[in-house]
């Protein structure tokens, strides 16, 4: 009796632990690749990524996915219409296939009969991806915001935690928006994000100690908005913006976000001082970013001259002429000793190509510039035509990045610390909700097919009603807790002081020196 009981327990334990289905004996080969979601066919993945769980589309009642490793050993997963891969098995598979690939054969039971699809490969790169990312989760709403969070995700598994969320201390009347999280050189001990409206201020973390700063001064347009940490010094460049929203009545783009004014400032953390970097008349400067060596500050700027100043306010004119507003990419040399910037140099004349460039991001080796490019404007996440473009900073060739773009918006891109991975948001799934996609970028400057951030349940994105934005790679998780942020947020903000500089000196645009080629 006892023996039988042990056998039953052992059998149950075995079933519970392995869960490896058998490949069906009889099946019909359909000669097609399977329709799987998310689409992980022929992608290149890091050797430390979480399992690529997927579902098989169509009227599938059962399925088996057989993974063949480089040593020809196989392992199977699958149940109902989903392939859910055990985490431990998956990491063993990745380790075995590093620098090589996994062959995946999908068998699906449809209408009572089994079909075998053409196999596909999942290539496993040699280079790891940073183990953490952070992002903001927000409903793709317009002006309302509730349940807004800046969250961090362990890329090697499915663990996600809040860095901070706006429901901790915000109320109906003092609602709080949070945005623009950013880190110094991929490390989280020095980081920042903004709180707007209720308990507003910039939450600055230095050596894991949070402090709320008020960056608005009488001499600047606004508090800091889009941030850029200097890679080594205690300095942050920010744009300052007067931002407004308006809504399309028919266009599928739905929303237009515009800056009626914007400048670039530099915040000296140690001195708690703000100074202007660029505040040219008729220029809308925005999206600062440093080169990895900290010697140049790149940014975007749109030239906008009033034509209807006599009849309507600037916001009205910008609405009228929204398709005329186009951002170019510029840069300024930075003298760290004097905290001074050189003249403005044109890097990419997007307007000349009837395009608008945003969010320049320089690869960690300093060789490439990745930017979001659309036909106009600065808020490309709502522009279906927005794509990622890559400029080789040696040749100055700008090209639409192959393999990563879709018919819908791509934006909010970033490089991993080793420069081999890019993360960005894409609306390719359904045109309205932004999802995170990761793409391998090889040594030859070629991007490979992007894949969706893996989730434990392949149905996750179908039911998830929030969008991802501003993905940032991190080498480690944020150590300050949400409660510590909330506690600091309740305190009054430390006011930054303004230091007068001549932001216009040497700021004339040197078009003649700029060289740009667009492929």
């Amino acid at each position: 009796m006892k023996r039988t009981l042990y056998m039953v327990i052992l059998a149950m334990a075995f079933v519970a632990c392995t869960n490896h289905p058998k490949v069906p004996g009889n099946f019909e080969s359909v000669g097609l690749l399977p329709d799987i979601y998310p689409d992980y066919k022929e992608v290149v993945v890091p050797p430390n990524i979480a399992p690529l769980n997927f579902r098989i589309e169509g009227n599938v009642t059962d399925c088996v996915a057989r993974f063949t490793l480089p040593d020809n050993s196989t392992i199977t997963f699958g149940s109902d219409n989903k392939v859910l891969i055990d985490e431990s098995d998956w990491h063993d598979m990745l380790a075995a296939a590093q620098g090589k690939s996994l062959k995946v054969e999908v068998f699906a039971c449809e209408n009572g009969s089994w079909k075998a699809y053409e196999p596909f490969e999942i290539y496993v790169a040699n280079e790891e991806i940073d183990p953490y990312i952070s992002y903001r989760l927000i409903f793709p709403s317009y002006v309302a915001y509730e349940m807004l969070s800046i969250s961090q995700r362990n890329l090697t598994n499915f663990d996600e935690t809040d860095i901070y969320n706006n429901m901790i201390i915000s109320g109906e009347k003092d609602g709080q928006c949070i945005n623009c999280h950013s880190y110094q050189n991929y490390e989280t001990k020095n980081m920042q994000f903004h709180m707007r409206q209720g308990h507003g201020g910039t939450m600055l973390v230095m050596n894991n100690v949070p402090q709320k700063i008020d960056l608005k001064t009488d001499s600047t347009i606004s508090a800091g908005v889009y941030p850029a940490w200097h890679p080594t010094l205690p300095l942050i460049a920010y744009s300052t913006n007067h931002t407004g929203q308006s809504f399309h009545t028919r266009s599928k783009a739905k929303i237009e976000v515009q800056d009626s004014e914007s400048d670039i400032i530099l915040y000296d953390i140690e001195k708690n001082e703000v100074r202007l970097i660029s505040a040219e008349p008729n220029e809308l400067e925005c999206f600062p970013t440093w080169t990895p060596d900290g010697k140049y500050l790149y940014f975007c700027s749109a030239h906008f001259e009033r034509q209807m100043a006599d009849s309507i306010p600037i916001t009205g004119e910008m609405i009228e002429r929204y398709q005329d507003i186009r951002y170019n990419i510029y840069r300024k040399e930075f003298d760290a000793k004097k905290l001074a910037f050189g003249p403005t140099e044109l890097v990419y004349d997007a307007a000349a190509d009837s395009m608008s460039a945003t969010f320049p991001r320089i690869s960690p080796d300093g060789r490439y510039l990745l930017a979001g490019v659309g036909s106009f404007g600065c808020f490309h996440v709502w522009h279906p035509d927005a794509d990622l473009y890559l400029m080789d900073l040696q040749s100055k060739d700008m090209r639409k990045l192959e393999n990563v773009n879709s018919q819908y918006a791509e934006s909010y891109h970033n490089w991993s610390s080793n420069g081999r991975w890019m993360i960005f948001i894409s609306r390719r799934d359904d045109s309205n909700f932004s999802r995170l996609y990761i793409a391998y970028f090889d040594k030859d400057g070629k991007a490979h097919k992007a894949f969706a951030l893996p989730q434990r349940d392949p149905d996750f994105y179908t039911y998830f009603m929030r969008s991802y934005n501003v993905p940032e790679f991190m080498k480690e998780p944020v150590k300050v807790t949400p409660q510590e942020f909330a506690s600091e947020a309740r305190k009054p903000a430390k006011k930054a002081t303004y230091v007068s500089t001549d932001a216009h000196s040497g700021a004339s645009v040197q078009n003649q020196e700029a060289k740009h080629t667009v492929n």
Partner: protein
Amino acid sequence: MKKAIYTLLFPLAAYLILLLHADYLHAVAECDMFISGQAFFEETLRTQGGLWTWLGCYLTQFFTYPWLGAMIIVAIWTATYFLLVDAFRLKGWQCLLAWIPVFALLVSVVDIGYWMYYIKMPGYWFSQSVSFFAAVLTTWIVVRLIRLVWNKDVAWIVFIIAYFAMLQQFPVFYHRNYENHLLQIPFIVAPVSVVLLSLVRLIKWQPHMKWATEIVTFIALIAFSATAYLLSFRNTNFQAEIRMQKAIEACEWDDVIEEAKAAKNPTSLMVLFKNIALMHTDRLTEMFKTNNCGCLPDTGDSLTVRMAQIAGPLIYYHFGQLNYAYRWAMENNVQYCLQARNLKMMARCAIMNHEFDVAAKYLTILSKSTFNKSWVKEHEPMLRFADKLRESKEYSYIAPLLNEDVNMLDYDNSLPEQWILSHYADLVNTKNRKQDNVALCASLWLKDEYAFCIQFYNYNKNYPGEAVPELYQQAALLMGTSENSPINLDNFPFDQLILTRFDNFNSDYGSMSNMGIQHKEIGTRMREVYGDTYWWYYYFGDFKAY
């Protein structure tokens, strides 16, 4: 037998009171959302009292059929009553007091009114009753166990302690903007009454005459029922708005118009609904023949109602403004919890806008709720077959208003009615008769003389030789013949009857004015004779945008 009657009296009354609010309960089901599956369960469980919220969301769906939802909730309350009676060993007149928490729960369901649209507590309508029942049930089990093995006299103390421990999860009505605390009273009465029950059981007194107990019980239960009814939100405009929304959803336009006609002092939303019905039945020129003056809704407390939040998506949708309908459905979902009605609207707009991928997402989510499957089944083919979309009833009403050539960047300042009227009044490149009529009527509604003249000019140009509707002739007489008018109507062939009536209107107005009668009073007196004319609306009518 008598005992059974007394026991059933209050549940029956509660059931009837709920059925008297059947329209509201149906709307409640649309203002909530349940999604079967692990993702929704886990997400809901992360919040405080998440299990009760999840159960509340599940059960609130049953109000789709008010009789069924009401039956379930009354069953829960009745079970709660029996548990209380047994736990405290109440006898005779004491049993009556076990109905107090049930009474409080009933009031908490029917006193919400316009808060229905603003409440940020998913599953509110059931979650409190379920959690209260669970608290009572759990502690009742504990008490029964203690009675079996320990001192019977201390069982009720254990009950109270365990009960309050369970109530930590009780989802009390709460809203940060709420200033008069009437709606919170049931949530104080229900728990406190349980403490009273524990004390009452110590009173051993029972009346000698049994009939006295029966009469007191009967009167008290009637009083409970009457009080619950009186505390319920019975604003007739609120109920009519709900019925009109339901009729609009079903494209039953005559019902919408009848509701509006029946209202003595309709809200602006009701007027708008009526005019949507007239617009879709090609009778928009009759809009001033029925009451076109809308008032602000009476919420009964500090709540400020916004049209955008209670019906913005539906209004924009029926005026062919899909992006703005989608926008407000999304905003309201974000601000006031996920609601089935908003998800449906987002799906409809996406289908109509040919954004089929995102429409499929919303349909998939809706298909995971219990009572929206047939709605999904009806709309799903439209994703795959263009014919199905074109054949749909709604498409025939809305498609003529979709103006593909007109894309504007704009914002509505959260005032849909004002925005729609201004948008149409200023619309220059109208595409068909429906758009022409809406544009003309919008200018009249706003009393925008310049816009009317332009639209009237275009109308006559677009439809030469056709008889001009009476409304437009009335308006042209008033607004097109002034010195500042941008159009010349010297040779316009006005109907003689209209000209005569206009003269009479002016003469009556002049004579009353000469008699020193106040403007408002003149309006009241002239309404009977001229209330169906645009002239009356122009001089005396108004609407409140909110």
